[in-house]
């Protein structure tokens, strides 16, 4: 790349001796003019499209869990990302330049995550990095992004960004955080399902967010926690954990992640049968899993949190329709190519929306080059954002954004399993998920 650039420039210099305007220079000048016009939206649609194909691309590093326990999510994050990039590029790209995705697998591993971020910065020389999901990988990778001053947009839903544990270069603008999710739903759970709650959650950062914030929220509603049951991430059988649930429990709150989740639900069915408490789960327990899988009949009549309802609802928005079609997902949340392939619908929209946030911030800051100064401007442009209205860019719904916390806030959905599908019974307001800020990243140095 560098030698190519050098070669080109030396050729153009020698030609410049003979003629004031070279063909290459002319094309470059036209390109820049068209870029400026595209950025300001002056060019008609098709022209923007042509221009975006010709200009040098914006390179975005996509840190993806292609392998490891996050692989099912990774595959759908990739499909969503590719669909969003295709849509954005077809509409003229960013500042008249097409997006180019450079994907690297982090194996859902924190150490490899940090290496991948470094590789994006030093080898691929990308403009920004996005896409990380699993909380322990975010925790492992974000410090490297901060050190390398690389804008790092995570799509993770952990509370790590808003808690202040990370750095000024790390954002979570496309998906809400666990703290916000659980406090907005606790009142509904307490008044509709019960006040004595046993919690089963993964024994790592993401699970602790649930444990701490949901416990506090349910106690705030006058409820009580009957048991806290952490489950090791490598666990494959779960019957023994159900034995720890006290008899007086009114609600079983579960959130599980990884390939063992279906086993978890099946064993829960074996254990309780029909004499079960009310059950409220996070859809994380069943992402990418067909609700018609054997053993899941048990879930009929139980409730789930969803960030974005998997099944198209009666009041489905035009934006949801547009988004589903673009990412190739049918009304049941499965791939249009293979109805057996169920998507991770409640998380993957985060990639789509994050890309549009990056696009908006780059356009606002007039981002052109991968320099520290321009990256700093980009960071400030994201921090200055306050709201994302519901639109094709933000199909999950309208959101507010707190630039000091680097975190967005939005609506949550509670769905009931009825006849093998999830029907939304409650939608929270954005205000339900707001909490006292814990940090101010804008005060940290760039």
């Amino acid at each position, binding site marked *: 790349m560098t030698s190519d650039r050098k070669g080109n420039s030396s050729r153009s210099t020698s030609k410049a001796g003979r003629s004031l305007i070279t063909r290459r220079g002319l094309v470059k000048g036209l390109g820049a003019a068209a870029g400026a016009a595209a950025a300001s939206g002056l060019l008609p649609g098709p022209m923007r499209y042509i221009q975006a194909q010709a200009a040098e691309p914006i390179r975005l590093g996509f840190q993806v869990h*292609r*392998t*490891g*326990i996050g*692989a*099912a999510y*990774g*595959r759908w994050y990739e499909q969503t990302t590719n669909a969003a990039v295709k849509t954005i590029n077809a509409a003229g790209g960013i500042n008249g330049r097409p997006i180019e995705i450079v994907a690297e697998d982090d194996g859902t591993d924190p150490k490899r995550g940090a290496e991948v971020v470094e590789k994006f910065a030093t080898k691929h020389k990308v403009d920004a990095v996005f896409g990380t999901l699993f909380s322990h990988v975010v925790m492992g990778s974000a410090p490297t992004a901060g050190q390398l001053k690389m804008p790092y947009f995570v799509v993770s839903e952990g509370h790590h960004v808003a808690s202040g544990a990370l750095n000024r270069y790390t954002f979570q603008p496309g998906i809400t955080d666990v703290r916000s999710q659980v406090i907005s739903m606790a009142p509904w759970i307490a008044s509709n399902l019960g006040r004595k709650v046993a919690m089963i959650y993964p*024994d790592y950062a993401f699970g602790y967010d649930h444990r701490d914030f949901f416990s506090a929220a349910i106690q705030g509603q006058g409820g009580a926690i009957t048991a806290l049951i*952490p*489950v*090791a991430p*490598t*666990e*494959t*059988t779960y*019957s*023994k954990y*159900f*034995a720890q649930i006290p*008899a007086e429990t009114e609600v079983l709150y579960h959130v599980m992640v990884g*390939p*063992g*989740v*279906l*086993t978890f639900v*099946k*064993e829960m069915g*074996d*254990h*309780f*049968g029909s004499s079960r408490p009310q059950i409220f789960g996070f859809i994380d327990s069943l992402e*990418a899993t067909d609700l018609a*899988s*054997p*053993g899941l009949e048990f879930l009929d009549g139980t409730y789930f949190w969803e960030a974005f309802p998997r099944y198209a609802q009666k009041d489905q928005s035009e934006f949801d329709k547009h988004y589903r079609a673009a990412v190739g997902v049918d009304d049941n949340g499965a791939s249009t190519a293979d109805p057996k*392939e169920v998507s991770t619908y409640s998380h993957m929209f985060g990639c789509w929306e994050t890309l549009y946030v990056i696009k908006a911030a780059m356009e606002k800051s007039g981002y052109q080059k991968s320099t520290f100064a321009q990256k700093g401007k980009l960071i400030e442009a994201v921090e200055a954002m306050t709201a994302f209205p519901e639109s094709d860019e933000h199909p999950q719904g309208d959101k507010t954004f707190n630039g000091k916390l680097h975190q967005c806030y939005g609506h949550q959905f509670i769905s009931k399993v009825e006849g093998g599908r999830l029907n939304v019974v409650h939608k929270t307001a954005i205000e339900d998920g707001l909490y006292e800020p814990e940090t101010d990243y804008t005060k940290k140095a760039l």
Partner: protein
Amino acid sequence: MSLGPHLLLAFLEGTVSAFVLALTALGLSLVFGVMRIVNVAHGEFFMLGAVLAYGFSSLVPGLPALGFLLALILSPLAVGAIAWSADRLVLARLNYNPEATIVATIGMLYIIEQLVLTIYGPDAHPVQPPISFRILFPWFGYSGYKLVVVAASGMLLLTTWYLLMRTRIGLVMRATQLDRETAQNFGIPVARVYSLIFALGAALAAVAGVLVVPIQQAHYLMGLDPLLLSFITVIIGGLGSLRGTLIAAFVIGLSDGMFSVFFSGTLSKIIATLLVALVLVFRPSGLFARSAR
């Protein structure tokens, strides 16, 4: 739940994991005992069994019992065939050199894992149990299929014991284990016996994988846990000792059940690992290893 039901659940869980572990570890122990090969790819044969079971059982949609039966027969055969070719193509060419075969089986581990990821994908897939019923205790319900797994594993263990101790092929295997060169001088086709043993060891792991898949689902990373537990079992039981392997499997399986019900799953793994350390310190060749010949 009070102590009694807790204990019952711990015992049930422990028994299931003990039988599955015994089946898996037996294959590893057999391969080490006869061929002196530390098969690091053993867990991948377990995983292949489960993944192929998903494939075979979906060939008969609507009839879970028939699909499962098909998988129970075809998966171990297919995995055995793969292991047989791996032995012919790789291990035999290395002259079963202990160091080289460790590296070679590590290579197999990665190749199998990546091939399964490429072809089968990263998702975990469920397989419907052949019979599905719930045993209702006064305090909790329990999957009836898990007890079927115990019965099936028990029968397979008995069959393997019979094969090794009471049949001609078993005699040939034992002779090869005792002294490779003398066996060869007596006209035993050692090369063929080795391939057969490697295939049998892999098939045993695959059977365990098939039996487990209606409980756990098939996933490309599921081989790691059985591999580690099998190693722990084989080390505690004594490398190459089948009796020791079985006893160790039951000790580890049951203690795993007890500790993880009463304390935590992580603690039971810590204790198993500690047990390995103690065995290695005080009886380096394992609890039931025969003296070196």
